[in-house]
Every structure is written in C-alpha cells, then in structure tokens.
C-alpha cells in the first residue's frame, strides 16, 4: 500500500505500450493462424469433394462388375480400382476400399489399393453400391491430408512472420511517435523552464528596482516628512516670534501710546475746564484735543485687541507665558470648572531647554480640542490627561469615561476626533512625523492618543532662536 499522496508516474511511451501489447499479441496470433487455417479448410474441402467423386466412380464400377461377374469380380477388383485411380488422376486418394452393407471391409486382394499406415489420418468419403436399387455396400475413398497439412504449415511460417512484422510495426510506430512527442514536450518543458527562470530573473530585477524605488520613495518621504516637520517647526517658531514681537513690540508700543493718550485726554479734559498753564491751549482746543485723544484711544484699544487676537491665532500665548505643562494644567482646570468634570492630569515636566514650539502648540491644541469634545458629547464624569515626555518621543493621551460611540456605524459627532476639529491637528501631527489615533466603543469611553517624535530645529531646542537668527 503506497502512502497516500505518493504518485507513481510512467512515461507516455510505456503507458501506450502496455495497452498496445495485448492488441499486438492478438493481431500476431490472428494473422498467423487465419491464412493457414483458411488454406487448410479450403484444401480439405476440395479433398472431400474429390474423395466423394472417386467413391462414386468406384461404387458404379463395382456395381457393374458384381452384376457381370458375381463371384470373380473381386479377384480382378485390384486392377479395376487401380484403373479408376489412375484415370481419376487424383494423387491425394490414398486408399480405396469396399465395405459390406454391415460395415465389414471386403478383402479384394492380398495387395489392396493403399496399405493403411499406422496413425495416418485420412478423409474418408463413401458412395453406396447399389444393385437393383438395393444398397449392398459402400465404396470408400480415403484422401490423405499430408499435403494440405504441409501446405498449411508452410503458410504458417510466412504468415507468422507477417503477423509478427505487422505486430512489431503497430507496436513500435506509435511508440516512436510517442517518444518523439515526449522529446518535443520535454523540449517545450525545458524551454518553459528557461522562460520561467528568465521570468523569475526579470521579476527579481523588477522587484529589486521596485524595492530600490520604494526605498528611495521612503527616503524621500522621510526627507519630505523631515522637511515638512522642519517647515511646521519653522512656521510655528515664526508664528511664535511674530506673536511675541506683536505682543512685545507693537503691543507694548500701543499700550504706551494708549497711556499717553489717556494722559492727553485727562489733560485736555482739565484744560477745557480751566485753562491751565500746563497745556497752554484754549478750552476749545483742549476739548478738541481731548476728543481726538479719546478717539485715538479707542483706535488704539481696537488695535490692541486685534493684536491680542492675532497673537492668540499665531499661538497660544500662554505657552510662552507659563510653558506647556502649566498651560495644559490651567486648561484642564478651566474645563473642569466650566463643565463640572473631574480632570486628572499626569504631566511630565519638559527638559530645561523646553520643547519645540510646534510640539507644544500641537499638544496644547489637541488637549484643548479633546476636552472640548468631551464637554460637548461624551457625557463623561472623569477625564484623564497624561503627557509623557520621552527622550525620543512625546505621548499625549486624553481618556474619558463617557458613552463612547461606534466609529464604524455611528455618524461621527461633529468635532469628534477625526472630525473637522481635529483634522487640522491630525495634519499637523502627521506633518511633524507623529500619529494620532482614537479608540472608542459604545459605553467604553473615548481615548485620543498622540505620539510625536522629539524634533527640533536647533540642537538646544530653542527654535525661535533659529527664526530670529
């Protein structure tokens, strides 16, 4: 019993040969025997006819002789039968005998026509001997089969050769054809194998090229990310510098202007009431100056407000004021107070050099956006905010115990992570080379995790110095 799965194989030639062999044997035997047998049958048929004809002649002659010489006929019958035999010119008639109606041979002479040979097979045919329409015996003529047998055996040799030859042709011609077909198929398989090998080489080359291209693309992507990251860092640093400049320079100047304008307005108001020597202006002029100062003060206040708003848009000023940890802590405190939430903060202190302004802004704004979403949609009672600062990575997590939602089935809550609110943050996080992911399920709360690489424009972490420089 062969193990299952083991497949024994044979070649086409052997497969066909095994099935041709019985047919070939059959053909050889039939071809070899058919012609000799047919010859033997035809020859024996002819011999039977001749023997019967001879027997008829003998019966007629004996009948005539018996009637002419009832007693003496048989003493001269040998000559009579020899005469018949000679004139029938049938050499195959080996024996002629006369038998009584009881089947007993009538001895005609001491030298009858043809002595029986032991073991000799003869074709015996008979004819009735009639006298006065009475059958008194039978004349028998025996034809010898030796010639027919020898002829059949003689035919057997060439027809056996013919049968074997035909069998060999029928066996070997398809075999050779199969062998040729096998060679062609083998050649095709070899060509296919070579083609496969070539194809594999080509695929390997293309794969190598694609790998190189992919590596190049990845390198470019890394480079692009780096550039993007640097661009974001630079942008954020610039925004922080601009904001600081606006706050420190224009804001301070406008504040000074406003103070001066207040002083001018106060002086003008005093001058209008009583002409003082300090202004040297008439009350009317002082009043006019006072009103101008008031309108200018209004313009200065509006401008200051615009500057504050611009500074706020450019970057949370609180970051510059108190740093990331304190800003987030304050943000949590404010949200806790406003929304009646218990917010637990676990915040690592940044290194002395601080973080890049871009990283601080992203962390602050993600926290701000996440808390806003908690307050609006989560119906939570507790929020955990964790900020972990590793040497290479920053991890920020905001987790609530709210109702959560099915991110696949449920419509995305407006402003939810991944919604419009965090779209910008996601872009900035990704531009900085980081990731942001949201984990939520119905009844399981929501968790927003941001991971950012520690990137800076300068080695000491003061990116704004790079911008100023």
């Amino acid at each position, binding site marked *: 019993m062969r193990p299952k799965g083991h497949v024994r194989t044979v*070649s086409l030639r052997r497969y066909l040969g095994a099935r041709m062999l019985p047919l070939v044997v059959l053909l050889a035997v039939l071809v070899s025997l058919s012609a000799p047998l047919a010859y033997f049958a035809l020859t024996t048929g002819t011999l039977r006819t001749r023997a019967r004809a001879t027997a008829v002649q003998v019966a007629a002659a004996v009948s005539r002789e018996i009637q002419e010489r009832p007693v003496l006929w*048989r003493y*001269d019958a040998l000559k009579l039968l020899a*005469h018949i035999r000679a004139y029938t010119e049938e050499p195959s008639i080996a024996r002629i*005998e006369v*038998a009584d109606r009881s089947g007993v*041979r*009538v001895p005609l002479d001491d030298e009858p026509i043809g002595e029986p040979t032991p073991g000799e097979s003869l074709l015996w045919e008979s004819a009735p001997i009639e006298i006065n329409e009475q059958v008194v015996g039978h004349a*028998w003529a025996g*034809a010898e089969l030796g010639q027919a047998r020898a002829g059949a055996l003689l035919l057997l040799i060439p027809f056996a050769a013919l049968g074997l030859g035909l069998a060999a042709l029928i066996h070997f011609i398809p075999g050779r054809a199969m062998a040729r077909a096998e060679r062609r198929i083998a050649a095709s398989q070899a060509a296919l194998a070579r083609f496969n090998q070539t194809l594999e080489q080509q695929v390997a080359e293309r794969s190598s090229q694609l790998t190189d291209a992919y590596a190049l693309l990845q390198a470019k992507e890394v480079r692009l990310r780096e550039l993007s990251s640097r661009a974001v860092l630079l942008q954020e640093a610039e925004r922080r510098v601009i904001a600081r400049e606006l706050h420190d320079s224009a804001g301070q100047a406008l504040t000074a202007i406003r103070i001066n304008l207040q002083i001018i307005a106060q002086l003008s108001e005093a001058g209008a009431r009583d002409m003082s020597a300090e202004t040297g202006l008439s009350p009317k002029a002082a009043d006019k100056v006072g009103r101008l100062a008031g309108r200018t003060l209004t313009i200065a206040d509006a401008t200051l407000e615009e500057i504050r708003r611009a500074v706020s848009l450019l970057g949370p000023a609180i970051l510059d004021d108190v740093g990331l940890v304190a800003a987030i802590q304050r943000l949590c405190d404010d949200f806790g107070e406003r929304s009646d939430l218990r917010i637990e903060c676990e915040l690592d202190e940044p290194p002395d050099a601080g973080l890049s302004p871009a990283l601080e802004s992203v962390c602050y704004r993600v926290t701000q956006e996440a808390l806003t979403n908690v307050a609006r949609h989560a119906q939570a009672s507790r929020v955990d905010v964790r900020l972990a600062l590793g040497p290479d990575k920053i991890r920020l997590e905001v987790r609530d115990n709210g109702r959560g939602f099915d991110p696949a089935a449920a419509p995305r809550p407006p402003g939810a992570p991944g919604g419009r609110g965090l779209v910008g943050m996601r872009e900035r996080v990704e531009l900085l080379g980081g990731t942001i992911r949201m984990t939520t399920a119905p009844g399981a709360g929501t968790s927003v995790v941001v991971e950012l690489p520690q990137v800076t424009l300068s080695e000491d972490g003061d990116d704004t110095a790079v911008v100023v420089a």
Partner: protein
Amino acid sequence: MSAAPDIDPDDAESPASLAALWIGVAVVLVAAAVIAVVLVVRLAGSAREPFTRGEVPRDSPLHLRSTVRPPDVVHVAGSGSNLPLTRALAELFQAEHPGLHVVVFDSIGSTGAIHATYDDVIDLGLVSRPLRDSEAALGLFVYPYARVPVVVAVNLGVPDDSISPQDLLDIYAGRRAAWSDGSPIVVLQRERGDSSHHAVAEVLPDFEAVNDAAYREGRWRVVDSDQAMQEALSVTGGAVGLFDLGAIVLQGLPIKALQLDGIAPSEASVQSRRYPFSKDLAFVSVELPTGAPAELLRFVDGERARRLMRRSGYIPLPEDQ
C-alpha cells in the same frame, strides 16, 4: 527520458482497463483457439477407418464364395495372356470330348487366378508368371503348358522391323522419341505386375528401373489388359508395347512383332535363348485334378493341343526332348 511528460497510472481506471483489455484479448484468443481446434478436428479426418475388419457375412452380394459347378463343366479363369490359347484349346477339347464343357472367364489376372483357385471358386487357374513366394506357400499344383515369346509389338505403320534391347530401354526411358522415319513413338505401358514386363525385366535388369520411373512420372499411357493393349496397338500410329506373339498369331491381329537385334521370335530362337524374352503359361489347382479338369489337363498335354500351340506361335511345355 527523465524530462518526459508523465501520466499518472494510479487513476481509478488505468489498471482496471489494462486488465480488462488483457482479459478481452485472452477471451478472443481462447475463442479463436477453440474454433481452430474444432475446425481442424472436423476437417482433418480420423486415423480410424470408417469400416471394420472381419468376416464378411456369407449372404453378402459383395463376397459370394462359390458358383454352381456341375461335374462335367470345368471353370477356368486367370491371366489375359493365357486366354486366347486356353479358349482355342477349350474349343478343341469340347469338340473331342462331347458332354464335357469348359467355361473360360474373362481375365482376372494371374494373382486373381491363384486366389480364386485357392478359394475353390474355379477349377483351374491360369497364370502367366512364376508364383511369388507367398503364392507358392499356398501349396497349389502348377501345370505349365505353353511358353510364349514376349515381343516388342508395334503398330503396322511403324517402319522399323528390328530393335535392340538398348533401343527398348531408350524408348521406355524417353531418350528416343521417333522411329527411323522420324515418326513419333507412342509407348503403351501395362499396369504394374504385368507378366510381359516381368519377362523382359528378367532378362534386361535395367528395364525394371526404367519402367518404374515411367510409372512414377506418368510418362506413358498405361493399359490394364491384353484386350486393351491389342486394340491400342492396332489403332495407334507409332505405338509400341510388350505383347505376346501367340496372341498376335492366334488372333491374326494387325500388329507387327519386331525382331530383337535381328532375331525373330520363334520356337527355335526362344529354345536356344537367342531370343531372350518369353514367359510360361500354366494351370494351377488347389488339389490334384480329377474328373473333367484332369481330362482337360491330359488333353492339353496331348499331341493335338501341342500342334495347335505350335501353329499359334506358342511353344508347348514340357519341351520336346
């Protein structure tokens, strides 16, 4: 070829179909063998004879054992060579012995005569050749009564008058095919065992071989009786055959007897052996003849009969001292 495409032979049908194919072929071969054997057996006949060997029933018309023979009737049968002389002697005997009759049957040959005599179917048998050993063992009585020259007889149209023994051999061997005038020679041969052929072969040993070869090759026309021979010689131009001089003379047949090396067959030449071909005619009987057969034998040995023989070209036996 290792790289050759392979076929899985373990599919469910392959071994079964191959076995079925072999079984089918074996069935066809067995059927063919059976048919062949039946055919051969039916056609080939049998070594067994289709008749039995034994005593033929006495009432069989094919094997009557006796004829009615009154005491005053002598039944004589035998060789055709004896018949012309015996019939002439019988006629003379009946004329001299009123009340006695001799019936001379047609030829049954010397062999038939011996067996018929032994079977007591006839009173006297006529033989024209010496008895063979098997025949002599039967204990028959033999009465030679005439010697007749065996001649090379030809059709009257043959121009030649003499022939040599070598010519005779050449003619029977087919080496000579024409007479002296160029006319073709037609050889007439008697059946095997003929007494004339035997007489020539006794003197000319090569003749037996030549004669046998002619039989085997079917070279010449074979006639199986004296009657047929004399008719053929009479009417066939250029014909030649061995015949009895006495039959020619006694019956006045239109046949010519050739001399042998210039020596004519006569009582003197035969007695002196200068003419070598002759045969003796004899009666045979199963016991010492009595009655009418004994009278016939005495008559044949008498002077009138011997004169008849001499007149007819026969030499009476026993020879005159």
